[in-house]
């Protein structure tokens, strides 16, 4: 049915309501976008608690055996750092005589094992824990993998990449230098030019097997009561007592693989060749095996290599205080 055009009386109403809606939409969207904007101040915020307190592995105010006033480091005179004295040790393993050894553990074609002389250094008694990493993340606003802090606070932190581990080391180095809580001995070392970092592959192996070339930190045979391996998941650090282990260290076998600062290269080991292949795809050495591994992989001489960006639930780290190269 055709009709004529409406009269002027039916002209559209004034758009006051519509313009109000438009203005409201603009203001609302702008406000919402403002709320969604990235944090303009990534600097440390001591009051920032949102990330971790709601996580399953939220850190309690106190943790037995650790100092809540010192970044949850172990409660002893040197905050858990143990001295490994200078001297030589036997590195590598001989696949010809040890059925469990892998080919990459052999020192060279002519020599099954090598003798490496290292200066003294200090190494963490335990793997870095969830609580310690959480203290770092809170202090710096560091955005870690969500999985990294899911475990209970006294378990080793995992799902951290190699750069994540180094970021923790840099932070710990800074706070130990600056804080009054730092033991004088450690502070003296740092003032003398030492630094907190990841262990080299050689430092790690010496700390694990001492100078007598043990297959496992506690001796020559596998023992389930001394380490967490072939198990369902991580365990609290230090929960497997190991009085026989060198330097009183825990979890050098199992629990989580531990990042080192050494690029994965064929033996013989020398820190001098770390810079030889800068254009290559890098793999970095990890040591010690993890809760997922069998007894073969938790031997002191086992060498694992991982993509530095890998964040896996079975890879963590421990730190050393060592002289700069």
């Amino acid at each position: 049915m055709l009709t004529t055009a409406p009269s002027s009386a039916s002209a559209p109403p004034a758009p006051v309501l519509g313009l109000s809606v438009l203005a409201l939409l603009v203001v609302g969207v702008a406000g919402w976008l403002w709320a969604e904007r990235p944090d303009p101040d990534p600097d440390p915020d001591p009051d920032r608690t949102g990330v971790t307190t709601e996580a399953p592995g939220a850190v309690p105010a106190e943790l037995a055996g650790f100092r809540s006033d010192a970044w949850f480091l172990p409660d002893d005179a040197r905050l858990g750092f143990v001295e490994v004295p200078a001297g030589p040790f036997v590195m590598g393993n001989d696949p010809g005589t040890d059925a469990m050894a892998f080919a990459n553990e052999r020192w060279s074609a002519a020599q099954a094992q090598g003798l490496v002389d290292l200066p003294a250094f200090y190494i963490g008694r335990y793997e870095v824990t969830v609580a310690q990493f959480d203290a770092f993340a809170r202090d710096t606003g560091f955005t870690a993998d969500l999985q990294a802090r899911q475990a209970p606070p006294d378990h080793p932190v995992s799902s951290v990449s190699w750069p994540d581990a180094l970021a923790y080391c840099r932070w710990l180095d800074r706070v130990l230098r600056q804080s009054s809580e730092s033991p004088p001995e450690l502070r003296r070392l740092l003032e003398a030019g030492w630094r907190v970092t990841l262990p080299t592959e050689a430092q790690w192996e010496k700390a694990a097997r001492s100078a007598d070339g043990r297959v496992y930190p506690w001796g020559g045979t596998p023992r389930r009561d001394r380490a967490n391996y072939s198990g369902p998941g991580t365990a609290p650090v230090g929960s497997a007592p190991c009085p026989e282990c060198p330097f009183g260290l825990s979890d050098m076998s199992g629990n989580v693989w531990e990042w080192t600062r050494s690029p994965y290269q064929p033996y013989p080991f020398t820190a001098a060749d770390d810079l030889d292949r800068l254009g290559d795809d890098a793999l970095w050495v990890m040591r010690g095996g993890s809760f997922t591994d069998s007894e073969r992989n938790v031997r002191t001489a086992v060498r694992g290599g991982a993509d530095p960006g890998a964040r896996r639930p079975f890879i963590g780290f421990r730190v050393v205080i060592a002289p700069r190269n």
Partner: protein
Amino acid sequence: MKTLNAVTTGNTYAGPTCSPGCGNDYTWLRARRPDGPLAPSRPVRYKQAGLSMSAARPRRPKPGRQHGPPQPQTHAATTPAVSWRPLWIPAALALLLLALSFVPRVAGNPVLVGSFWAASAGLLAWLAVLVVSTRRHAKGRALEVVLRPQHYLQATVQVAVFVYWGYFWRPVYDHAWLLVAQLLFAYAFDMLLAWSRREHYTLGFGPFPIIFSTNLFLWFRDDWFYLQFLMVAAGFLGKELVRWQRDGRATHIFNPSAFSLGLFSLMLIATGTTDLTWGQDIASTLTLAPRIYLFLFLIGLVVMYFFSITLVAGSAAIVLFGSSALYSAVTGVPYFIDSEIPSAVFLGLHLLVTDPSTSPRTPIGKALFGMLYGLGVFVLYALLGVLGLPTFYDKLLCVPLLNLSAQWIDRVAASLGGTGAIGDRARWGGTWSPARANLVHITVWVLFFGAMTALGATDSRHRGDTVPFWEQACAEDRPLACQRLIQIETNYCGDNAGWACNELGRHYTTGGIVAPAIDEALAYFGQACELRFQAGCVNLLGGGTRSADPRALDLRLLLREAGPNLLEMPEPALYARACDHGWTFAC
């Protein structure tokens, strides 16, 4: 006046008029025909309660028509009858939108699902209010179907761009369902908005070019997709409500898609939330499609032929190309990094800025309008870069301002019309028939594009593409060269080229070309390291500034240069290409 088949309600309002690129020199010329509307433009109305239908076919403008400002439409028009039946349509559209939330592409993301449900609920609630209101006044609503060529031809061209671009950048195809959802939302929103203000709604392809044009430049990521619906709503609200009197009748001021794009661009810039959108990716991935300039040029010819947008697009391109060439001649470095005219800008000057209903009507005014767009993009690109903001907003921000200046530009053009060489209408084809003038303009444009192509300014390799070029230019202290070097290395690092991340870390460590920032440096070294670029790991360990040649994987990214996908190129060919692009280590 927009078109003769629009529903009219006296002289003050003519219903929904135009959408982006609705191309209306043609309809305007028809309207200027002395003896009244052309036969094909007259809506064929079907005697059906609440509905009428018309079909307007594109026709070439005939010789002999006069140029001049459009006159108010004064002829009496008929309107379709009102009834309750049309109100089912927005309900159906809202329910369809709801149903789309069950499509796997949408159902996989809870935020997307929530966005779809919220949009549907909003539309249905609005419809309920409208139904109550209309029943109270015992009035129905009327729907008239008018299929305007400026809408469906424009939409066809835009779909062609999506199809071609998406073939080489798959996120476009992944976005298809979301485009459909926006269309459903747009139709329902437009109907409800129109029926909330009057009895009649003109149904056609109008929302298609608005949605497509918006999505050719900006869309929100899935987790923030509800903002996309709000952006669409803003465009339609702007079209319906922000109006002025022009040539004796009320018409919208802003190109709807440009209005919402401009508005949201400002908000995204102000809040630093560009990362919530695909804007940067959209702007940089058009060139993944081979011969994209030629493709855009060819489809642009279709629009130019039917809708006479050549003066706007051509003058914008000429100004941009001329400005770039001048800058390059003076400084020795290209102005834009990867081309003389960025491909997204080239797309914009064909499909975003050329809506005749929101641009000047006179030939000189159109040319001025295009020139101002070109200058605007040129200036904004530098300004945004200096402010450290994403430069892809350059083509979006100036369009609303130009829309706002359209009448002023026409007045300037009119004042120029009587004086001097500029005003010599013969030079603009003023003494020719519109069709002939349009063909002349197209011919000039074709020749110009040919010249640009011959000079290597379109699909050819661009010297600003290569990192070695900018490294050298930076070393020679050319203007802005170091800033551009940082910019392109940042882009490549974002593409996961470990080499580029390491170079950025080195720059922020040494402080040679940027202010030293150790935290930034460590973050870039860390990123390089996680991408398995060994030098990055070593620098992270020791705070050094070691460098290494790009790996093959890096070269596949660095040599893409916003061009073809090189991931499967054999290494010998890859290194040959690297050598050809200035990477001496690869020779």
